[in-house]
Structures are given as C-alpha cells and as structure tokens.
C-alpha cells in the first residue's frame, strides 16, 4: 500500500449565504430563533412524512463550496489546483490547512502542514524585524529552535539585514513583504499549501520567490499550489486538479488539465463584459463594473489588424478611500504566459489615496506591437505589498489579425509573443 501524503475522502463544505453556517448573529435573533424554533422543527418533522419534493426551500440559502472531493497525493508530488474564482480552490486549502472544518468527509495528512494563505500573517508593526521573524515563524508552525537555526538564512534572503532590529512599522511595504515571504519560504514542512502567494511583491521579488518555490518543490516536499498563473502552475506542477463549482472535474497530467480549463473557460470574446453590482468582482471598497475593448475609432470589437491599436476601458467604482490602489493589466497568451504587464499610471506613487467615485481607466495598446495571435486580458487590483483587492483574472480575449499572412515572401509565421515594428538600417561598408 502506498503511504499517501494527503488523502482526501469525500469532503464537502457547506456555507450559508450571508450568515455562514451559524445563523443568529445577535442575541435578539437568537432568542427569536429559540421562540420560533419549535415551530420550525415541527414543520420539518412533519415534512418527513409528506412525500412531496418540497426541499428546495431548505436548499436555497445554502452553498456547497466543496462537494464530495476525493483525491490522494503521493509524497513529493507537486499538484496545481486551478479553477475559476469561487470554484472552491481556496476553501479546499482552508480545509486542508485546518482553518475551517469540512461539513462532512475526512482528510488524512501525513507530516507537518504549512500553508501560505497570506504571507506576513501576524506581523506586528511595533515589533522589530527580528521579533516578527520569531512570532511569524511560530505562528506558521516552527519551533523557536528551528527558527534560531535558520535565522541567518532568513535574514539574508529577505535582504533587510540592516533593519532587523528596527520596528517593522518603519519598513517600506516592499521590505515587509520580503521579510514575511522569507520566513514562509524557510518553513520545512512535509506538506506545503500555497495560495496565490506569488501575487505579492515586485517583479524581481516574484521571480526570486518563484525560484524558491521551485527549489522547495524539487526538495521532495508535497506541494498543493493554488494559482491563476497558468505559467507558474505549468512550470512547477506535474499534476493538476480542476475545480468547478466545488466539484473536482478533472484530475490528471498538468498540461492536459490546463488546456481543458483554458478551452472551457468563459473568457469573453465579446468586446464588453459588465456585471450587476451583486455579481461583479469586488472587494469591500472596490467594484469592477465592466471592461470594454474599442478600436482607435471607438468601435467596440475584439479583432484588430496588426497595424491597428486598441483601447481597453476598465470601469470601476471606489466606495471608500483606498490607499495605494493599483490597477494592473497583463496581456497573456492563450497558454497563460504573460506578454507584458502594465499599471494604471496615476496610482503608482506610494501613499496616494484614491478618492471614492466611479472611474474609467483607459489602457492604449499601440499598433505594430503584438503578433497575430489571440491574447487574453488579465486584470486585477491590489495595494502593492499590502493586499490583493480583486485577484487578477483573465476576462476578455482579443485577436490580432495579420492579413498579410506572415512574412511577405515565404509566408512563414513570425515567432514569439510580440511582433514590434523594428527599424533596421543596413549599411554597405
């Protein structure tokens, strides 16, 4: 018998919409609940003997975040968990990391588990970097002795050595993230659960982190990796799990699962995507209202000539002042690789507070930049180094068309994700 690292046996997790799981939230509600409970119980019991299918009313306010999920992971396997927002990926990790209990089913884990659901959890601004390393490390499950052993390494990796005895509140947000990640990256559990951790920090640091992840996954540790970054999933994981509405729909070789996901994904090919306030991607203070694609002549469409530019209009609403709001946009290939990333300009300054109101950000993609491929527009909002507001996601697709059919003589296609017009100068010497 194989000794699995993770054995997940038919777990389900049910939430009540609005008031999750536990219904009354004030005494008044609870007391009125107690008063009316006998009546409700009576009705429910009476229904047991009535053979109508009137169970819908019971089911209405219940959401199954996970439904009968079963899978096993062998020691050393690196598994990517993919799926749309709300598919249950994070709930799955929360159950595995024992933050929340499953409604039914059982999980067996062999070895110590650490989860990186959000780096820097438990950092206290008044404590020094050194003290926070110890506090954060023990919160993540290390012992004091283990931290002492790795202390130098953690500090070196973070690059904040000079400020290690300074309270963390005087750190820049970037330094804070680096220190936090450094602690997390030096955990040595047998099972590591990672959720979107790569979305923090600047590009250089992300690259460094990704390298560290790779190292960790090659060190024979069992890893469950939740991400929207298909490139990272593809390069780190050998196996993929695809979740859809809380159900495990595909479990297999990573490339296949990713392809399945991307081909079924509801990336809109229309030039417009908009939501009602309730369905829109949102955080407490921010709503993404809609995205539109226009040509330079303000026609709404999604295919463009290679020598045509286009505009991406992002409509969002800020409900309450947000510090350092940053809208980021990535253009990705259908394989999930980022072609380039760009940021809404006005918000890059640190400490800049965005006032409430409705906004439209227009990103102008110049002509003669992209190749004749299909690109996906990936949009997210964050406060750099602090918090992800609306996690990045691919929303719309644009097709770039080259009617000239490639290189003008041999008709061969141009390689590469971009195809800028480059000036050549040829001199005969």
């Amino acid at each position, binding site marked *: 018998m194989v000794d699995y690292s993770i054995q997940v046996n038919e777990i389900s997790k049910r939430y009540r919409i609005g008031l999750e799981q536990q219904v009354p939230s004030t005494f008044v509600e609870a007391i009125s609940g107690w008063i009316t409970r006998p009546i409700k119980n009576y009705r429910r019991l009476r229904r047991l003997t009535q053979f109508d299918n009137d169970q819908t009313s019971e089911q209405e306010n219940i959401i199954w975040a996970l439904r009968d999920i079963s899978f096993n992971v062998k020691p050393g396997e690196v598994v990517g968990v993919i799926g749309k927002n709300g598919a249950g990926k994070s709930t799955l990790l929360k159950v595995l990391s024992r933050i929340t209990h499953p409604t039914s089913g059982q999980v067996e884990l062999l070895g110590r588990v650490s989860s990186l659901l959000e780096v820097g*959890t438990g950092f206290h601004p008044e*404590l020094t970097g050194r003290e926070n390393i110890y506090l954060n490390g*023990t919160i993540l499950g290390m012992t004091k002795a283990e931290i002492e052993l790795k202390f130098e390494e953690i500090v070196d990796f973070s690059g904040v050595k000079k400020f290690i005895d300074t309270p963390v509140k005087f750190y820049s947000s970037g330094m804070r993230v680096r220190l936090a990640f450094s602690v997390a990256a030096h955990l040595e559990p047998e099972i590591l659960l990672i959720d979107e951790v790569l979305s923090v920090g600047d590009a250089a640091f992300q690259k460094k982190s990704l390298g560290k992840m790779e190292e960790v996954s090659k060190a024979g540790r069992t890893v469950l990796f939740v991400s929207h970054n298909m490139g990272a999933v593809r390069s780190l994981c050998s196996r993929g799990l695809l979740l859809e509405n809380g159900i495990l729909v595909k479990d297999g070789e990573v490339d296949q699962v990713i392809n399945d996901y991307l081909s079924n994904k509801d990336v809109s090919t229309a030039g417009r995507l908009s939501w009602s306030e309730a369905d829109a991607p949102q955080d407490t203070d921010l709503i993404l209202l809609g995205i539109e694609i226009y040509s330079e002549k303000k026609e709404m469409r999604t295919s463009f000539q290679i020598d045509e530019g286009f505009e991406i209009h992002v409509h969002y609403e800020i409900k309450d002042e947000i510090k350092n709001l940053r809208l980021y946009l990535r253009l990705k290939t259908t394989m999930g690789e980022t072609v380039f990333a760009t940021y809404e300009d006005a918000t890059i300054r640190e400490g800049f507070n965005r006032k409430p109101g409705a906004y439209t950000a227009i990103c102008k993609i110049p002509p003669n930049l992209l190749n004749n491929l299909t690109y996906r527009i990936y949009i997210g909002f964050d406060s750099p180094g602090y918090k992800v507001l609306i996690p990045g996601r691919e929303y719309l697709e644009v097709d770039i068309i080259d009617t000239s059919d490639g290189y003008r003589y041999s008709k061969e296609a141009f390689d590469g994700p971009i195809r800028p017009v480059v000036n050549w100068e040829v001199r005969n010497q």
Partner: protein
Amino acid sequence: MENNTIKSKRELPRIIINDGNGIKRLINLQELWQYRDLFWFLVKRDIKTRYAQSVMGVGWAIIQPVFSMIVFTVVFGNIAKINSEGVPYAIFSYTALVPWTYFSSSLTDSSRSLISSKNLITKVYFPRLVIPIAPVLAKLIDFGISFLILIGMMVWFGIMPTIWAAFIPIFVLIMMLAAAGVGMWLTALSIQYRDIQYGSSFFIQLFMYISPVIYPASNVPEKFQLVYAMNPMVGVIEGFRAVLLGTQSMPWFYIWIGSASALVLFISGALYFRRMERYFADVA
C-alpha cells in the same frame, strides 16, 4: 540530507481532519505543548506592544490602580466613610485594586482576543486556545509592578504581612483561572454574537461592585453570602487583605467556594471554546 529525510519519515505526525464532532479530541494537550513557543511569543508580543510609543511606558500599569485608589479613598473612604476594617482606606482599597485591576484588564483583553486576531484565525492553523490565554499571562507583568507599589505602601503605613502571605501564589492562580475561564466564554461567544463585544467592558465594570473592592465582604448580608462567594474574586480579594493586612483570619469560606467556581469556569470555558472553535473561521 538523505539521512534526514529517511529519519524524519519514521516520525511523521498523522493528522486527521473530519467534521470535528467527537469528544475525545476536545482538549489536545499534546498539540498545545507542540505550540508552546508560539504561546510564549504571543505573551511576549502582548507585553512588548502593550505600552509601545507611550511616554509613561510601563508607568501605566501603576497609574490605573493608584488613581483609582486616590479617587476611592476620597469618595468612599472620606465622604461615604465605608468601613475599612481598621486599616487606612487607601491601603484597604489598593490591596483590592491590585488583583482587581489584573482581573479586569486581563479579562477585557482575553474577551476581545479572538476578534482582534481575526486575521490570524482566518489564515493560519494553530491551537486557538492560546489566543484567549496569552493575555492572561501577559498581564501578570502589570500585576507584578502594581504589587511592588503595594509593598511600598505597606512599608509606608508600617503594616506587616502575616505568615499566610505564602498563599499569594494560590490566589494569583485562582484569579488567572477565573480570568481565563470567563475570557474563553466571552471571546467564543463574542465571535458569534457581537453583543458580547459591545457589552463586556460595561459588564466588567459592574462586576467590580459585586466584588469587595470598595467595601469589605463582611458588609454583605448573611443570606447573600453563599451566592456572593461564588464570585471567585471575592475569595481572592479578601484573601489578599487577610494575608497582607491581617484585617481578618483566612477567609476559607470565600477561598474554597471561589476556587471551585474558578475551576468550573475555566473547565467549562475551555470546553465551550473548543466546541465552538470549528466555526470561528467561518463566522469571524
């Protein structure tokens, strides 16, 4: 490296997660022991950040009971002329304020602890019990400091403690159990019913009047004595006065009943907390 992996493989812990029903996992002492370092760092954090960026610093630990003593001495000692069992009212009330301030402030922190660590419990797993218990330990520092002032006052007033002062650690233990017990109840309730959060400071304030802080317990009518003694702080405060000021003989009646009820509060609090624990991340 290779050896390490093989070696550690043999002692890999097996963790089983299920719907959380079942009594046998209610109190997992082994796990609490594994997380003892976290516990100490949380206590240390509470101590270190307590008076961060303040001018008075740890002086605040003294200001609160000392100023209460001054006000009480003027109002209840001089104006209302409450019986202080033959010792100056100032030291009579301060002897009570030292344990009382500890109890009320650790209970306040403990009952708020879950809500203020909301972002921890929704992101990381660790035994939740450390959250309400850490402040109860951290407050011992403040208690120690205000106790030193008490010793200074005893010297000033020329009061010798009795031999029974050796019992003080036991009184401290009783008030810690009581504070942790009530704290666990309140914090577990408050994460679901926010009413508790809003009401607890008021409730703790009222609690002082059913504890013998400004008056001696002997002022309470005979027929209420049994119910009154169920407040664990009655035994603790009267005990402090008896052993330090020698105002009376050891109040065994209050101490026995008080420690029994502290123990009941602590055990029931821990059980209730553990039972509700699996909902914390969902309702926080």
